[in-house]
């Protein structure tokens, strides 16, 4: 193949893409849709349930303060610290609950695997940027809040290329 034809072919294949749909996801307005509500774990079968590994969600009435999540995190990132909580729970005699420092957390989900009481899950929330390091530390009260996420944009594949609808 001659040089000229090669260059013309290369340009042509680029020009063809002018007619193809835009692939860009306009992020703050559109958000990607994920499988399920986030990564969960079923201790009775020992197998997880697929989902995004985002910010944690803590069920206060299930947490017994057994520290298994904190022990699992000790070798990974030391992100989980057990802190005193003022309120009294029927389950939680020690009155301690995990507090997660997202400046250290690596979102591996081993703490979720370690929890045998269905107390710790992961949610689809990933918007955690902050101006200060202190803003990255989530107390048990903050972890209890289920994040409001509106994620509906999905990848669509048609004859005219892939786009986000």
């Amino acid at each position: 193949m001659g040089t000229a034809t090669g260059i013309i072919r290369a340009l042509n294949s680029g020009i063809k893409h002018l007619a193809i749909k835009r692939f860009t996801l306009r992020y703050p307005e559109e958000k990607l849709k994920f499988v399920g509500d986030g990564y969960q774990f079923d201790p009775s079968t020992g197998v997880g349930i697929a989902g995004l590994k985002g910010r944690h969600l803590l069920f206060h009435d299930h947490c017994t303060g057994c520290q298994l999540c904190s022990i699992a995190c000790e070798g990974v990132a030391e992100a989980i610290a057990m802190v005193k909580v003022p309120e009294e729970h029927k389950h939680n005699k020690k009155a301690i609950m995990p507090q997660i420092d997202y400046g250290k957390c690596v979102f591996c989900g081993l703490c979720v695997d370690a929890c045998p009481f269905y107390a710790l899950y992961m949610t689809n929330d990933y918007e955690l940027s902050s101006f200060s390091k202190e803003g990255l530390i989530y107390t048990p009260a903050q972890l209890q809040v289920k994040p409001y996420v509106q994620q509906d944009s999905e990848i669509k594949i048609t004859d005219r290329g892939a786009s986000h609808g």
Partner: protein
Amino acid sequence: MLKDLVTPENANVFVGKLGDILEKAIGKPLGYAINWGRIWSLWPVHIETACCSVEFGAASSPRYDVERFGIIEAFGSLRQCDLIVVQGTITRKMAPRLRLVYDQMPEPKYVIAMGACAITGGLYFDSYNVLPGIDGVIPVDVYVPGCPPRPETLIQGCILLQEKIKRMKARTFV
């Protein structure tokens, strides 16, 4: 009249006063204009320090396209840059180089710490060769957590930085 008032002796005072009045009048709108220019033309330095550079590359890919926010893809010389995104682990060998790069950038300059390693050391909190976060080396404006952060989180961090610049006094750097 004015000619009589201004003598060679007090000309300096008059010019100074005039400057003050002008600054009072247009200083604030000018500050807004300067900041407006800054937030839509943040040029990051092309310094990859560790594996978060993969997601930094993904953020400028067609899907996320940070150029929509005026964060031009990192190709310029570092003398033209005003943003440094520390993409991951800073080792003891890299730390002096990072400081060198930061010192060579002109004011104003902003720093985004990207990833757990850059914020606190992350996974490598007990490694013998990794710094526990970059706060000891350079001042940080925005922390973007994750290991590595999703490009969305990085974009959110950039939007936070733009808000911070909006609120900053532009004249501190002029």
